[in-house]
């Protein structure tokens, strides 16, 4: 079931995550918690003039799934509009992760970056 979770692609992202760190002067600055394990992700992002995501960075010590998901997500969402991100769901994340099958307990790990981003965008919309 989890067999393909630990394939090279994901492990590479885990060991060498992309966009790891914190942006200065971000439009979005959000910390999201995984209630199951207490893991947190700290996501910072900037939007361009058209309101599309132009840069994302993340921080936080997570598992292979959440780290690889965050690493790939920070690239995946570049150029997307808030509405497009709002529309993203579990299948999109699964596909992003290379079509991996996620057991129920790991879904939350994989979804953590997307959930953080959605929450950040909602906060941004409210404050605008």
């Amino acid at each position, binding site marked *: 079931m989890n067999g393909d979770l630990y394939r090279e692609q994901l492990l590479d992202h885990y060991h060498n995550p992309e966009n790891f760190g914190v942006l200065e002067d971000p439009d979005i600055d959000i910390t999201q918690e995984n*209630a199951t394990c*207490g893991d947190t992700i700290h996501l910072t992002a900037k939007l361009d003039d058209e309101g599309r995501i132009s840069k994302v960075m993340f921080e936080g010590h997570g598992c292979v799934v959440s780290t690889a998901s965050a690493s790939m997500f920070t690239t995946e969402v570049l150029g997307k509009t808030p509405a497009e991100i709002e529309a993203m769901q579990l299948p999109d994340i699964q596909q992003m992760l290379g079509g991996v099958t996620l057991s129920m*307990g790991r879904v939350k790990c994989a979804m953590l970056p997307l959930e953080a981003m959605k929450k950040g965008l909602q906060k941004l919309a409210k404050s605008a």
Partner: protein
Amino acid sequence: MSFDVSQVKRDFPIFQREIHGKRLVFLDSAASAQKPQPVIDALVRVYSQSYANVHRGIYTLAEEATAEYEQAREKVARFINASANEIVNVRNTTEGLNLLAYSWGEANIEAGDRIVVTEMEHHANLVPWQQLALRKHAELAFIPVTDEGELDLAALPPLLADGKAKLVACTMASNVLGTITPIKDVVRIAREAGAVTVVDAAQAAPHIAIDVKEIGADFLAFSGHKMCSPNVGILWGRHEMLESLPPFLFGGDMIRSVRKYDSCWNDVPYKFEAGTPSIAEAIALGAAVDYLTALGMDAIHEHEVQLVQYTMEQLADIPEVHILGPSAERRGGVVSFWMDCAHPHDIASILDEEGVCVRAGHHCAQPLHTRFGVQATARASFYVYNDEADVDALVAALRRVVKLLKR
């Protein structure tokens, strides 16, 4: 009647046993129902194959148990036309109603407010509100019951007129009179006056189709053990109402994060499920819902109305028997009665010798018994596995009571 009662009876292993050498005639389902083989099998299957604690595990067993536990929640949601995130697993109706009295009540009831209940409530839907009213110096008011055993609905608007009534709590079906209340009207009138509405569906969920959207109330509670399941209770609440409630019990699973001096809460419904829930039992409730749904809730109700009709006809021939409550078509499968010549205890004891199980006492509805000027009654209650032969056994045994005790 669209199901085969003799087949249903065979689904319940307990009917293989005898009582004092007689066939078991179980007429106490309003207290707690018997369990069919598929429900027992669900318990055995979980405990023998897929048991682990839910929600926090990431190994296969825990994920299986969690998936089944959440599927059961979805089944219960569909059963009453609700969403799964509105279904809170509690122990029983009593706990569900107490949760509301503590969580909603402590936050919303103040001195001078009015809480409205009815004269026919089970203690579970009376005492929590009575004690809340006493704690808060609020007023407790009762919708009266007519001599025919119906709610006197005309008495409700005056109780709401001054705007002081914050809550109306009402049963959907009486566990003594059998009366099916006009719950939609009660809820509509109460909500128009701005009151929060709580429905005790303990005697309804096992017997009649429930659609929470149609009823329109804020909260509704019922007990699995009265509907062929082990003991798990369900508290349903409209999602925004549940969201607005503070938590009741504190501990694992209901938290998002805990620090030494403060905590944040998990999402609804988990916010209300502190600690390890009754996992296998909740899954078995899912199996019970499947079983009842397959028989058909409308068919179950029709079956019970027919049995009650037949019972009332038969009992009319025993002049010593006096039945409380309305006519058969206005009630669920419950017939409570008293006898000139026999105390309910003696009725129950003598019936037991004939294998017939009825309950004797106040059935946790003392104020209602007071209202009718009796201390106790005997109660026969029917369910899916009862048939006319069971009624015949009841009637024959009651004739024996007369013979034995009448002078």
